[in-house]
């Protein structure tokens, strides 16, 4: 058994096993810290920074999903500084990404009184929906770059490595090597990426067709040649740089 670490979260004394993250320690005493990119069954990377908390003595805010507890830590999970940081993160996300399929993040926008229109010149990223295979679509206008899909495709589950980040900065997007259509990559269509996608950027094709207003009978009557014709139209490799 690992040794217990003693700390304070929002003034409450907490003991947690050494090696626990701040997120887990807080959760064990009923303090819920919001998360977006974090997933219980994926490796945490502290990418989205929504889980930041204030640790006494630390210069910057600390991501709770990856930071481990230390003896004597004093943590504020909902201080004004923390709330301001979360609000800004949410505003920037909402200004650049289509969050219409992410009810959890929408609820956070309300809770943190985020005002995405604070950035009137913000450019929404709106690449076209990629339909390059019969199983799932990729709608990267909804992608918040949480990295979960890349991780389950790699060591978190599949060891398949079909997708990764492409581009840099604002142009960062999840993509395949040389923007190849998915069937021509190492993809095995396990759909783990769909299972962990938090924003509906990855969706089973049938679900997507239903949302486009097709009836289930219409969907099932789509023949192979019809589906292929549709696929062909949209598999042109995206221009260099992807999203923009």
């Amino acid at each position: 058994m690992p040794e217990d670490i003693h700390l304070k979260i929002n003034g409450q004394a907490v003991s947690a096993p050494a090696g626990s993250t701040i997120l887990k320690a807080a959760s064990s005493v009923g303090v819920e810290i919001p998360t977006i990119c974090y997933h219980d069954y994926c490796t945490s990377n502290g990418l989205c920074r929504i889980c930041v908390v204030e640790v006494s003595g630390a210069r910057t805010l600390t991501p709770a999903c990856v930071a481990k507890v230390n003896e004597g830590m004093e943590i504020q999970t909902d201080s004004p500084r923390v709330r301001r940081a979360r609000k800004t993160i949410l505003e920037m996300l909402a200004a650049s990404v289509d969050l219409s399929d992410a009810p959890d993040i929408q609820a956070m926008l309300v809770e943190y009184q985020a005002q995405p229109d604070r950035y009137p010149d913000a450019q929404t990223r709106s690449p076209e929906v990629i339909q390059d295979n019969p199983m799932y679509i990729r709608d990267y206008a909804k992608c918040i770059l949480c990295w979960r899909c890349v991780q389950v495709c790699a060591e978190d589950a599949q060891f398949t490595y079909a997708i990764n980040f492409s581009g840099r900065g604002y142009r960062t997007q999840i993509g395949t090597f040389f923007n190849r259509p998915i069937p021509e990559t190492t993809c095995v269509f396990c759909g783990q990426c769909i299972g962990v996608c938090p924003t509906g950027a990855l969706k089973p094709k049938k679900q997507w067709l239903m949302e486009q207003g097709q009836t289930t009978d219409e969907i099932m009557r789509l023949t192979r040649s019809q589906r292929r014709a549709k696929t062909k139209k949209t598999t042109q490799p995206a221009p260099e740089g992807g999203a923009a």
Partner: protein
Amino acid sequence: MKEDRLVKTTCPFCGVGCTLELHLKDDFIYRVTSPFDSVVNHGNLCVKGRFGYDFLYSPNRVTTPLIRKVPQKPGARTQAFDLSEWREVSWDEALDTAADRMVEIYRRDGPRAMAAYSCAKATNEDNYLLQKLIRALFRTNNIDHCTRLCHAASVVALQMAVGSSAMSNTAAEVIQNDVFIVTGSNVSENHPIIALQMKAAVEKYGAKLIVVDPRRIEMVNYAALWLAQKPGTDVPVFAAMAHVILKEGLANREFIASRTENFDAFAESMEKFTPAVAESISGVPQELIIQAARMYGSAKNAAIYWALGIPEHTHGTANALSLINLALLTGNIGRVGTGLNPLRGQNNVQGASDSGAMPWHYPGYQRVDDLAAAEKFEAAWKIEPGGLDRNLGLTTTEIMAAVQPGGVRCLYIMGENPMMSEPNLNHTRHQMEQIEFLVAQDLFINESGAFADVFLPATSWAEKDGTFTNTDRRVQRVLQAIPPRGNSRPDWRILCDLALRIEKRLGRQVSAGWNYQHPAEILEEMSRLVPDYAGIRYERIEKEGLQTPVPDLTHPGTPFLFSERFPRGKGKFHPLDYVPSAEMPDDDFPLILTTGRVLEHWHGGSLTRNSWMDDLYPEALVEINPADAARLKIESGQPVRVTSRRGSIVLRANVTPKAVSGVVFIPFHFREAAANLLTNDAVDPVAKIPEYKVSAVRITPAREEELATPEARQKRGRY
């Protein structure tokens, strides 16, 4: 989009038995996920579990009972794929017709004229009922299912050596192995979720993997050693490993003394299998055999995982025994993280076997020629003493061979597709034409159902309740998610309705019992007759399945077997000799053909070829090594003709180092180029399993016009 309902159930494809969550809107499954805390698959799925369910909505599915318009005669029976050749009828008319004809043939020719193919895709309850129907009503044991075509030799060998024929350990224990052997198993395509656990075992837990396989399968990428034996030379390789383990003092003397018997005879028979001899037969360099023996022999926890590359040979039983010998020799059995683990193919092949859909056994592997067992089932089914047949029934291949006047006249096929799955299909076709009366119970008019007189439309797994037993003996619930499509009915209900009609026509005074209100009652009846299922009830497995044996209602299940003793008492070593495959390559047929499956398809294709899955892998491809292809002047994608002594097919070549030189591979899912037209119907003398893994073929270039579906192409990048 928000679902109307979320239904937790068990995947209908392979033996892994993943938990699925079906997301439904308007009775349409539009999305499948898996809970991340699921015990079998930890939230991971493969393409079949995630996307392969849509066959059940296919416009090709038949959802009305059908009778052939033109009466069929034995010897002139034809296939009718088109609905215009069938008449839509009521359930009453279909079932009455089936009952009338079956009883008529039974009255005229007796029990030997009756036979059934049961179904490893169907539930335990469905299989239990069909074997009950055949045994109790027609007094014959002529019932079998596809276990005969897949793991029969593993089952027989395990019964001979340890007395139990399932995976000894839980699949997820692979992360507790120090060393594990994967042989005759393309795990990443056929048991993808177990493959993930194997990859994690190597990459994250430091296990060493030894792959013994004549194809360069994906798992070779993770292997410490790859032994590429010529197909059919498994015994020399594994016997030579035993030879080295014996010579180098790596045998577990304490385990051998306390838990095994017949060691001396075995050890003597291993003398001749020196690594040099094994190399000369198998082509595996002797240094690799020695390294593998040392690695397996000196591991603390070692396990062996195998699939159909081991049993599907004329010496399949010996192949499996060679693996069992290794485990007994090193004591790698009976503990966590060890074991003998035949990976079962079908979602419920373990369960269909447990449920007695086999010609030599009642449910629970109780032999039909054992007096006490027969009396037990006579009492349970209210049959007069001596009423049940004490003779072993015919196996899958024997049933087909016995179709002739004086032999089998009436065949009932529940869910199987022998016209794709039997070896030497030209012969199978001839036999199917000779059947006097044929009933097919299925979702689709497949190649076999097209021969039928009466077609009974069954429901898929998502439209009925029941249980499946997965490869590591876990009995799991299958839940009805949607109402039966059209006028289809669950298999168990069809069988009960038919049985009552047959019973009435036979004038049986006492009913064997067919008035079940729910499948739970069927499982309860079975659990009273099968000691390993005694403690299984639906209410106990609603949340999580139980691993058999479950001997009583409070027993928590059995994650690994044989900790104290083997069911037969001591584990028995078997001396072995090398027997070559029935058909070896020669000047006319210089290449060895081996067959199997691909990730995107399922067996005879009834399901996945009626799914969008067919888009991902739309045509048969023959895998051929670049060196062989260069010699034959064949390029990747080019049409080729593959010919054996029994048949010939045309398909595209896939030139790939996944095939080793001299060995080609064809998946057997594609009716347009059915691999089983080529395969050899020679069988293992003990287990009666056909030799799907070795037949001699030649390859010649073909023209584009000779392809059945030249337009069906999909470029793919996966390994």
